[in-house]
């Protein structure tokens, strides 16, 4: 992961050189370890295919003998817990979007969502449908989109190469946005599903665990989740009253 480094060439009397060393500026050893981890991450990608759209038909040629994605260390996986990439192949109805969000929240970070085909970008040929969503990126953070209706296996390969290059450079960090701005994403989700919407994963507690709990994580929309707090407490899930910020009272 690329962190900021202290600019050595700067004048020692400037504010920049005299400031405290932040958490992002790590030791050389730590940076080498992180770079090695990113190198490995980029070369071992486990994909969870969410194949309710028609784009799924382009995946068998990509992973079998003709194009063989295993050359790049890409393997299909069966469950969200094991996966790194959530590949959304095509349109999402409001009903299936719920399942996608539940699936996405179960994946351990770092995780990457790829929107496949024009349906995930702007609704595509389902633009006039009352039942499908238009932009996937409103509901969960999308790392990359593949344009086309539908994209060919070559485009899928190109996407994977681009994703690998980004992960290698430590730039594929869209997933952190979900935790940093959870309230905004939840607002979009609640606009579709109503304010009683909640998933089994406690995203706010996770944001704290990942160290990504920021002032935009909580807000008026996460406040609606408070009604489930007694339920969470019965299960022994650490939640609500430790949330720190006073905005939830």
């Amino acid at each position, binding site marked *: 992961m690329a962190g900021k480094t202290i600019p050595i060439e700067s004048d020692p009397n400037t504010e920049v050189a005299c400031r405290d060393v932040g958490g992002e500026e790590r030791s050389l050893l730590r940076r080498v370890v992180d770079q*090695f*981890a990113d190198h*490995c*991450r980029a*070369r*071992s990608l486990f994909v969870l295919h969410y194949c309710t759209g028609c784009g799924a038909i382009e995946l068998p040629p990509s992973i*079998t*003998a003709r194009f*063989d994605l*295993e*050359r790049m*260390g890409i393997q299909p*996986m*069966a*469950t*969200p*817990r*094991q996966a*790194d990439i959530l590949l959304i192949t095509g349109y999402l109805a409001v009903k299936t979007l719920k399942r996608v969000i539940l699936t996405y929240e179960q*994946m*351990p*970070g*770092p995780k990457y969502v790829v929107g496949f085909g024009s349906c995930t970008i702007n609704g595509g040929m389902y633009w006039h449908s009352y039942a499908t969503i238009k932009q996937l990126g409103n509901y969960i953070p999308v790392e990359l989109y593949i344009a086309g209706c539908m994209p060919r296996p070559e485009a899928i390969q190109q996407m994977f190469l681009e994703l690998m290059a980004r992960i290698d450079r430590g730039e594929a960090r869209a997933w952190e946005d979900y935790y940093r701005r959870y309230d905004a994403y939840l607002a979009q989700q609640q606009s579709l599903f109503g304010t009683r919407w909640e998933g089994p*994963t406690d995203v706010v507690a*996770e944001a704290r*665990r*990942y160290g990504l709990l920021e002032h935009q994580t909580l807000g008026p929309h996460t406040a609606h989740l408070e009604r489930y707090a007694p339920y969470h407490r019965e299960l022994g899930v650490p939640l609500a009253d430790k949330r720190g910020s006073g905005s939830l009272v």
Partner: protein
Amino acid sequence: MMTVAVQMLLMPLVAFLVGLVLVLFMRRLRARIERRVGPPLLQPVYDIVKLYGKRSQISHGPMHEISIMMVVGGVIAVVLFLPVPGMQGLAAHGDLITLVYLLMVPSLGLALGVGQCANPNGSIGISRALTAMVGYDIPLMLVVAGVAIAYGTTSLPQILAMQGGTWGVFQMPLLALAMLIATYGMLAKEPFEIYTAPAEIATGPMVEMGGKFMGALFVMQCFQIYTAGALFTVLFLGGGASWPGFLLKVFAVAAIPLTLTNLFPRYRAERVLHWMWKWPTGIALLGLALIMLR
């Protein structure tokens, strides 16, 4: 002569490194049979480092976390009892029975942990894993009994020494065949892949395993394939005087199930039990009878 303590550190390390190559071998073999190129050389390392680098977000409870140590600990313990060229480890202190007992520890550990995830796919998977174990353990125990009766000992170094002239596979070919099939079942490859079954029960026991848990299971897989090859090599192929010869035998033995697996779809759970209790058990019983009549 190295002390036992040094050997106890070296043996799992060597087994792990050989296991990594075996996993690569397995994936490349499968790729070549499917006319693909297959993963790059360091793929098993990339996978394991990546999985250990993931930030697991939830806990399924203390038992789930202890059990994964039981799984990895179990496979490492097995390796300590398997004599390899130049190192005997604990083989002189334990015997074949200890080793067969330890072979069951990973499955039992997995069962304890998976029970706590409350995932129905996991529960189905682990009950199938234990069913499969009942299936292949009976021929395995018959083979162990046959080998012990034939050589009059259960000590692995002594069994190795007695195979100096003729390999066990020529002395008791039926038992060797039964052992090979039991090993195949132990590796849980198609058609015996009832408990992983990704298309049916979403990888069964592994269904809730992400990040470090999955990484530990990848490590376990390395040890598992190595153990399967090495155990057969020690019992029936006379072990090895040197590492190249020993590794050649281990890879040759591992290649048999890993190649055949591409030919088959998956059996239903109860068919595995029927098949295991019919064919390898029958062959092992026949082999045992031949040895006792000799």
